[in-house]
């Protein structure tokens, strides 16, 4: 992430105005919890906090063409943990949707990645980090990918509500409380939160 930037509010204003849930990031205090706990952070070019930082810095191109906003798989970790109660995931989805509307086309591997992520969660109840990249290159076109992703999300949510799915990859969830909280929030937000 670039640290020395000239402050340019125009893109931030655009995001606050035109992106679904975009104005929520005004509350961000730059703590890094979302970026430190996102299970996909290693695959993202910019984890959520950095995306928000780039928005404030006016880096329109970097944000709208970023892999990160397309990669978010709605796992809710950031939503549950954000100390400022920001629906980080919704903002990521809002940005993805906005980027598509603005004609930014995500790289094929990104969309496939999302699909494969959910595939694995569905089948294995967890993510196999080694197997994932290999499989990403199989799947079909982009629109299919997004559709499939949304479908899988529905299944994922249902599974979550039935508490059969272990959500955080390869790491045990400490106590059921966090999971319960996630489920409560998931239930509250419903699918409305997902379909950007």
């Amino acid at each position, binding site marked *: *992430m670039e*640290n020395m930037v000239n402050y340019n509010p125009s893109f931030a204003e655009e995001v606050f105005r035109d992106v679904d849930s975009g104005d929520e990031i005004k509350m961000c*205090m*730059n*703590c*890094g*919890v*979302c*970026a*430190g*706990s996102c299970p996909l*952070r*290693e695959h993202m070019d910019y*984890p959520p*906090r*950095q995306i928000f930082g780039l928005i404030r810095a006016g880096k329109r191109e970097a944000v709208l063409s970023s892999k990160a906003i397309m990669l978010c798989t709605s796992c809710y970790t950031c939503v*549950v*943990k*954000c*100390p*400022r*109660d920001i629906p980080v995931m919704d903002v990521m989805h809002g940005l993805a949707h906005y980027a598509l509307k603005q004609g930014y086309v995500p790289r094929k591997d990104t969309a496939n990645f999302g699909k494969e992520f959910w595939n694995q969660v569905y089948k294995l109840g967890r993510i196999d980090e080694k197997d994932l990249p290999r499989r990403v290159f199989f799947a079909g076109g982009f629109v299919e990918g997004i559709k499939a992703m949304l479908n899988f999300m529905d299944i994922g949510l249902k599974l979550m509500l039935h508490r059969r799915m272990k959500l955080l990859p390869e*790491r045990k969830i*400490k*106590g059921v*409380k*966090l999971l319960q*909280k996630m489920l409560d929030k998931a239930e509250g937000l419903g699918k409305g939160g997902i379909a950007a």
Partner: protein
Amino acid sequence: MADVQTTNQSILVVGGGMSGITAALEAAEAGYEVVLVEKNPYLGGRVTQLYQYFPKLCPPNCGLEINFRRMRQNPKVRFFTMAEVAGISGQEGDYDVTVKLSPRYVNEKCTCCGKCTEVCEVEIDNPFNYGMDKIKAAYLPHEFAFPMRYVLDPSIAGTDEGKKCLDVCEYGAIDLEMEETSFDLKVGAIVWAAGWDPFDAAKVDYYGFGEYKNVITNVMMERMAAPSGPTEGKILRPSDKKEPKNIAFIQCAGSRDENYLPYCSGICCLASLKHTTYVRELYPDCDVTIFFIDIRALDRLEDFYTKVQEDEKVVFIKSKIANITEDEETGGLLLEGENTRTGEQILMNFDMVVLATGMVPNKIEIDAAPDVSYDEYGFLINDPEKTGIYGAGCVRRPTDVASSVQDATAGALKAIQSIARR
């Protein structure tokens, strides 16, 4: 039964911490009759559990001792320990109060000879050390306790163990027949100075407090560093009692967080800086890392921050830690987060983690008590529309001792005004 004669010219102070003691003494020294009610078996509040005071790093006992002396010399202050307020009714200038006294089973004849402790074989969790060690069920709450008098835990009062204590006491100080009693007071104004409780760190489950042995809280650190504490002043990993080689402090653990305490507790940054000096003094080779959102050291306290920054064994990393995982074999702790200055991912191992937790105010929880106002976080507001009951110290805002003392002086003045208005 207590023989307390009070009138609507008297003032009730609830809570015998630094705030309550100050309010009581200020009002008494201005000529008013004061009754102070404290629920612990001793006065002094949370401050008695601190090892040293920032920023001067002096032991808290000196300050407390001066106040206890003022108290002993002033007949206008009556105080009761193991006492709580059970009921308040009436209005400004004319309150009826019921005070409930829990049995101590030890009377004023106690010379602190310690014989009852010697014979007693039952142990209880030591509340003074936040349950980190055990004490005998016949005990002195702590070495500087005021009043200096033993206590018998209710669990042994009716047992053979209690009988053993009774038999060994040569001074007739033990009375196993003591029961809960209560008495009524008339007062013109009330100062609520019930202080704070430490935030329950187990609520932030991704930090694993309560599950991971080597994750402790800042209040526990104070006890560990104190020579009278559970480890006799050595800071040791709870899991294997080894000296830690590297310690992490996690600031805002549950604070400034809409999911837990949305407010800043104001003192926990300073507390961690102070704890860093405890660690560094004890272990010249131990590394300390402080993870923070931003360090809040206001006014002259910034000098203390600057001083700690100069220590090259102390590293400050701007990040709110997002997860802790324990290595079950070694008891080591893996911290994850994002360094928000560089954007790099943090994956760092530590021997021990201290959670810098905040303060939760003790509200007035008495059935049918007169209405008072609180802010959105539960801190008492001295509402000009609802005069007569005033908050003082940490019940009004999370703060340090110096500010609590100032606030308590203001609280005493308000209480006096309530009486003068009548």
